[in-house]
């Protein structure tokens, strides 16, 4: 994270922002369609979500409040670095609270708290093309999207069922947007797919290495692909969060010791903290209180 001593507002030059802004507007007008754009070098490696960073840099203004999450957490190296980057190059306020944020940049998760009108969720996307593993050639996948030829995608999901008795895909589970484009929701767990459906927030997706931007406007149908006899299902967790007792949220397994001890806690750290602040206690908290 060097070379930002002499920077433009939000790092990118104005010409680059205009190019990215034009791409974002087309993406919003054609929900789920991947708009090509000329990705720029950013002062961070590709794996750090340069596509999402470029989208955020092109939309952010002095009145925005930015939240950055990685695997649901605000305090990972990646999230902390990106937050610090924008605090420096755009002088914006930052927050860890979902409710306070106007822009939320994310890798892997959609916050548990329902997003509201006016909020923008920016996804860092490594592989934007849902058909890539069926057809590596970009010219071919583009044709398939153009002709709405999504049969192969259904075949692949059905092979899962033949092999595993169910659709085994749990991350980057493909969705259909507004009945037209099949879209990769990025490496979010399928648990989060239903949150994309008719969300009140605008959702923008940036893939830096692959030079693609796509979008889902608010109140837009986002339907996970499935079959009548094998309907889409989200993951279910057997126990609530050990820290805050939340049910119906996405949990991460945390190893406690080297004898197999483990617990399940909210992946969304802000959600968990807010619940505990509000007095909710999980099994672990009760044990501590009893000791």
């Amino acid at each position: 994270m060097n070379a930002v001593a002499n920077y433009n507002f939000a790092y990118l030059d104005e010409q680059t922002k205009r190019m990215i802004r034009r791409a974002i507007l087309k993406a919003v007008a054609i929900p789920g369609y991947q708009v090509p754009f000329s990705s720029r070098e950013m002062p961070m490696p590709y794996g750090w979500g340069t596509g999402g960073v470029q989208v955020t840099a092109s939309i952010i203004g002095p009145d925005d409040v930015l939240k950055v999450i990685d695997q649901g957490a605000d305090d990972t190296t990646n999230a902390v670095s990106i937050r610090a980057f924008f605090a420096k190059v755009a002088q914006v306020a930052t927050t860890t609270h979902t409710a306070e944020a106007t822009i939320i940049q994310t890798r892997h998760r959609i916050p548990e708290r329902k997003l509201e009108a006016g909020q923008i969720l920016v996804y860092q996307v490594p592989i934007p093309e849902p058909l890539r593993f069926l057809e590596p050639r970009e010219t071919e996948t583009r044709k398939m999207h153009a002709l709405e030829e999504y049969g192969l995608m259904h075949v692949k999901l059905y092979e899962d069922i033949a092999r595993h008795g169910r659709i085994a895909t749990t991350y980057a589970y493909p969705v259909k947007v507004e009945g037209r484009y099949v879209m990769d929701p990025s490496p979010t767990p399928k648990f989060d797919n239903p949150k994309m459906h008719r969300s009140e927030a605008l959702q923008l997706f940036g893939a830096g290495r692959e030079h693609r931007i796509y979008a889902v406007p608010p109140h837009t149908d986002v339907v996970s692909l499935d079959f009548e006899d094998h309907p889409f299902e989200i993951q279910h967790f057997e126990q609530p969060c050990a820290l805050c007792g939340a049910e119906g949220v996405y949990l991460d397994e945390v190893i406690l010791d080297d004898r197999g001890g483990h617990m399940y806690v909210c992946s969304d750290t802000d959600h968990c903290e807010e619940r505990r602040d509000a007095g909710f206690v999980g099994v672990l908290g009760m044990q501590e209180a009893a000791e």
Partner: protein
Amino acid sequence: MLSHDFGAGFADPVRDAQAVFRAILDALANPGTPQNLPAIDTEMGRLGSITLTLTDHDTAIWLSPALDTEAVRGFVGFHTGASIVADPAKATFAFVARGDALPDFARCNLGTQEYPDRSTTIVAEMSALSGGPTLVLRGPGIRDTHEISPMGLPGDFVAQWRENRELFPRGVDLLLVAEGRVIGLPRSTRIVEA
């Protein structure tokens, strides 16, 4: 300062462009809901703030007759470097002055099935954003339905727009500007008369 001869640009180019862009983004993400444009008037009126925000030498611009003046050409050339084209089918953006006819959508660039993003965005100044015939909007960005009644759309607008919608994912996108505000009508929006 040379720029004076071509009309003023943004006072604060970075901040102003960001503010105008967010208004346009919100307009297209929430079709039919007017968004405030920052109060920046130019040689092209409020249309000019959109010109300054979105166009440069990578874009081609079509100007409606009332806008096709030496002053506007000078403004566009000096501040943006965008090329001006006579055929809307070659335009990235088509700017339409109040009172001028919108180009027929079918004569604009509609993009291709494989690259539907390579299409014309029409930016048209209306007499007003209300007071005209009521139109009912449905589609992405709209919870249930939304009604608008801009004054200044062509008489066959609903029929033209229906044809435009049927081309989806191809088609033009529309920005309507009046009274310092902008309404977005992306190609995904379905429009019927009330």
